[in-house]
C-alpha cells in the first residue's frame, strides 16, 4: 500500500522508478521493525486510497541514552497537496516521538525546497546552525 507512494517519493528525488525495489525496501523496514511509517488515507464514498506518508528512522544517543527520530521521508500525492495532509503526518510523527519519550525529531530537506522549508518552519522546526562543538565527517564505504 505504501510502496507506490515510496516509489513516487524517490522519483521526486530524481531516482528511476522501480516499484519492486520500493516494495522490497519498505517490506524489509517493516519486517525488521527498523522504521515507523505513517500513512494518510483518503476516503470518499467510492475510494479508500493512500495519498501520503512519512517515514521515521530511529536515532540513538549513547550519551543521552535515548532514542530520537529522523523524519527521513515525507510525501503527499501531487493532487492532494495544499490540504494539510503533510502537516497532519508531521504532527502525528511528533506526537508519536513525544509519547515514546524522545527529545527531538530532526529532518533534512533540499536547500531549494522552499515549500517544504515553509511547512517545517510553520510547524515550529528550527533550522540548525552548523554545530560549533562538533564537526560532521562522512566517508563513502561502497
Amino acid at each position, binding site marked *: 500500500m505504501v510502496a507506490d507512494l515510496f516509489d513516487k517519493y524517490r522519483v521526486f528525488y530524481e531516482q528511476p522508478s522501480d516499484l519492486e525495489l520500493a516494495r522490497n525496501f519498505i517490506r524489509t523496514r517493516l519486517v525488521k521493525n527498523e522504521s515507523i511509517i505513517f*500513512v494518510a*488515507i483518503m476516503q470518499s464514498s467510492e475510494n479508500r486510497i493512500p495519498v501520503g506518508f512519512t517515514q521515521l528512522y530511529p536515532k540513538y544517543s549513547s550519551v543521552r541514552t535515548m532514542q530520537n527520530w529522523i523524519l527521513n521521508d515525507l510525501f503527499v500525492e501531487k493532487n492532494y497537496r495544499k*490540504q494539510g495532509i503533510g502537516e497532519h503526518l508531521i504532527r502525528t510523527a511528533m506526537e508519536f516521538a513525544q509519547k515514546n519519550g524522545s527529545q527531538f525529531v530532526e529532518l533534512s530537506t533540499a536547500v531549494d525546497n522552499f515549500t517544504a522549508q515553509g511547512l517545517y518552519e510553520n510547524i515550529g522546526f528550527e533550522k540548525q546552525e552548523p554545530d560549533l562543538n562538533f564537526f560532521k565527517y562522512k566517508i563513502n564505504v561502497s
Partner: protein
Amino acid sequence: MRGNIRYEIITAQAITRAESKQSGNFIRKSIIKKWSLKNKQFRN
C-alpha cells in the same frame, strides 16, 4: 464531483497486519487520526 473528503492516518505496520488477517475492522481500530475537508473537489 464535490463533497466531503475524509482522511485518516494509520501506520504501515497496522495495514500490513490487517492485510495478513484480511481484516478491515483491525484497520479501523488502528486509526491514529481522522479529519475531513468539506466540499472539496475530488481529483481522482
